[in-house]
């Protein structure tokens, strides 16, 4: 047992190592890779925290979780209390503890980061949230007296779920409309089971349901009802959290060949439709032997690690810049390398080649070198002339980003968007150009992170509450 100990002593404790499945085991299953800290590990890790007065870690967290506050409750072994503390500002700790890029958010700001390793804030966040859920200690939040106001939420990703959770507690009548047959957005269709088990997302949605949030799945707003028709149906305010779901392709010859997927399609087949479990689920998926994933972000890492688990002999990341520019989380790149993913840096495909059945069999590539920095501040890759070479591939996953899906924007007159089709909002209130209509998450920012989407949801919920409390005009 660890009592409160001196600062000096605390700094001698080594950062907890997350127990995880061995790479050779995990490439053969879809179970979650890290097992989670043990209670003992969590308490020891919590003891490392110096409980700084002006905790800089909090500044690194987009939703300002009271980090020393919840860590202190872990030391007191009040794990469920710690989870509740986090939930005061972050409604999805089990998710964020797993998928937040902590190394560039809360943990990078930790005072221990300079001389030692930062406190494992993410691991601790995950630990307490799992503890609370697995021991059935999740409390259904108290709900204020009904206000008689109705709110429609379009899209059930982290942004929409956060708005729903905040507004239901304030006594509003909340309905979430989701196009797919399951709520969760990218959390269910994009991020694989081995990084974020789907029962965790389901549990989060179940709590919202038990609190009174109504879910209408398989409802595409813009096709079923438009935003204006939702108002006519009696909704007083609307939040749009439809995400960035329109896959970009390379626009090079051969892209229509069989065996070329967008990452969205590949991951949706495997995650939402559970094609990886071919004995129990009906949706098919191509299981390549030589798989090339184009891109260097989280999505690319998820796709390439999925391909290995689906039986690939060789799974490649093909990225046009160098490793230093890869936008994926360090932890994901590390996991991918451990799993035997082969990295082809400074490489870009220029053409896909098919067989007589129309299936992709090869990919012609060019080598690149880094030139001067471009608009994004990263060094621009320039093709090396004559460096063409051929790669044998039977599956290619294009993971070069998404644009905004225009379904809502094109059916909502007066809703302003920027030149990329993202909805423009007042950054303080998340209000759009239409009164009573708010938006947040990837539909506003373009592809970002779970916690930024959830943070936008928080802000929008506050503004919607103010709007409704001041008597929303009908």
């Amino acid at each position, binding site marked *: 047992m660890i009592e409160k100990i001196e600062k000096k002593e605390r700094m001698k404790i080594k950062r907890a190592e997350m127990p995880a499945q061995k790479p050779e085991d995990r490439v053969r299953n879809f179970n979650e890779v890290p097992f989670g800290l043990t209670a003992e590990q969590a308490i020891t890790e919590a003891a490392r925290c110096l409980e700084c007065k002006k905790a800089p870690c909090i500044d690194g967290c987009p939703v300002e979780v009271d980090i020393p506050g919840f860590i202190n409750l872990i030391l007191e072994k009040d794990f469920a209390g710690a989870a509740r503390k986090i939930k005061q500002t972050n409604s999805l700790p089990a998710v964020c503890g797993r998928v937040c890029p902590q190394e560039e958010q809360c943990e990078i700001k930790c005072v221990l980061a300079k001389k030692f390793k930062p406190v494992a804030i993410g691991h601790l966040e995950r630990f307490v949230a799992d503890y609370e859920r697995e021991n059935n200690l999740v409390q259904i939040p108290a709900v204020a007296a009904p206000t008689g106001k109705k709110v429609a939420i379009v899209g059930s990703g982290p942004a929409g779920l956060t708005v729903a959770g905040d507004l239901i507690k304030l006594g509003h009548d909340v309905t979430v409309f989701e196009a797919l*047959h399951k709520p969760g957005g990218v959390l269910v269709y994009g991020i694989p089971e081995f990084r974020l088990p789907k029962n965790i997302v389901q549990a989060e949605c179940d709590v919202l349901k038990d609190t009174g949030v109504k879910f209408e799945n398989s409802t595409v707003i813009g096709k079923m009802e438009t935003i204006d028709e939702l108002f006519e149906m009696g909704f007083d305010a609307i939040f749009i959290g439809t995400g960035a779901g329109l896959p970009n392709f390379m626009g090079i010859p051969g892209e229509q060949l069989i065996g070329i997927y967008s990452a969205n399609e590949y991951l949706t087949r495997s995650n939402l439709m559970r094609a990886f479990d*071919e004995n129990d689920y009906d949706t098919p998926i191509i299981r390549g032997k030589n798989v090339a994933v184009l891109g260097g972000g989280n999505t690319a890492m998820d796709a390439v690690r999925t391909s290995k688990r689906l039986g690939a002999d060789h799974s490649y990341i093909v990225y046009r810049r160098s490793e230093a520019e890869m936008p994926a989380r360090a932890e994901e790149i590390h996991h991918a390398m451990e799993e035997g993913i082969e990295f082809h840096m400074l490489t870009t495909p220029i053409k896909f080649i098919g067989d007589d059945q129309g299936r992709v069999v090869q990919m012609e590539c060019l080598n690149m070198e880094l030139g001067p920095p471009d608009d994004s501040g990263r060094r621009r890759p320039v093709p090396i002339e004559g460096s063409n070479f051929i790669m044998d591939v039977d599956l290619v996953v294009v993971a070069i980003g998404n644009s905004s899906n225009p379904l809502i924007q094109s059916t909502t007159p007066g809703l302003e968007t920027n030149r990329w089709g993202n909805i423009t909002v007042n950054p303080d209130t998340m209000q759009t150009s239409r009164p009573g209509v708010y938006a947040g998450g990837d539909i506003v920012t373009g592809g970002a992170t779970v916690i930024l989407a959830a943070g936008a949801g928080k802000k929008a919920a506050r503004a919607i509450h103010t709007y409704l409390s001041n008597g929303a005009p009908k």
Partner: protein
Amino acid sequence: MPRVVDNIQIGPLTWKMRVEVPRLVAKAKAGQFVIIRVNEQGERVPMSIAGLDGEQGLLTVIYQVVGKTSALMTTVENGGEISDCVGPLGLASHVENWGTACVVGGGIGIAPVYPIAQAYKEAGNKVISIIGARSKDILFYQKEHGEVADELYVCTDDGSEGHHGFVSDVLVKLLKDGAPIKMIMAIGPVPMMRVVAKVTKEFEVPTWVSLNPLMVDGTGMCGGCRVTVGGETKFACVDGPDFDGHLVDFDVLTSRLNAYKDQERKAMKKLLEDPNCRLTKAVREFTYPGENKA
């Protein structure tokens, strides 16, 4: 979960299902489609709208058993439920009063051209309907089309009913004889749509076809439904399903439809061997074209 009012066999391997989805029906228009999921483990399968009953809130889809999911659909009982029915998806067919318009339906395509014929008629057009199938017993909706069309032509490949030959033959004859057709909507198997588009190009009559690539979400999120039209990539679920038949690359469409052929056949074989599944005798005897039951 949406309630299936009835699900009845109307041909050797053809069924008609009516689903109670009043909100969807209130919004749906001819030419759009829905995506159905039969059960929790099931695929999401797109189905064209074959009829809309606004008063009762009923959607009609007509489907053919071609594999596992369509076979499973036949086991849904009258008054039963399916997991999901999402829509209306895609863009509605373009409808205006051109004077004389023609719909061409081949095989299962006879179903979706019916509400389009109705819409053309309501817009004030004289409607010519040409419907055809391999043989008489596969034909359906002759009566329904007859009630809407000003002129109805029925054909079968084997001559067992109506004109002996293809729908495209009838269409060519009409065009040669100077029928004042200003607009054509053709839906059916890819080879049929390809031929129709080819002949109408010679006569320079605008021709729409409804494309049926493989789909997953149906909202523009996955890009699996991409088709090549006029050299450009389009997503059939949001930019279509109707496209200018003279610009469609039918080779790409045909090839992409075969993406999962082996897996599909394996899944169907397993289902047909499952004694617990309530498949009718007709479905149990299913074979793929050009394949004999071993």
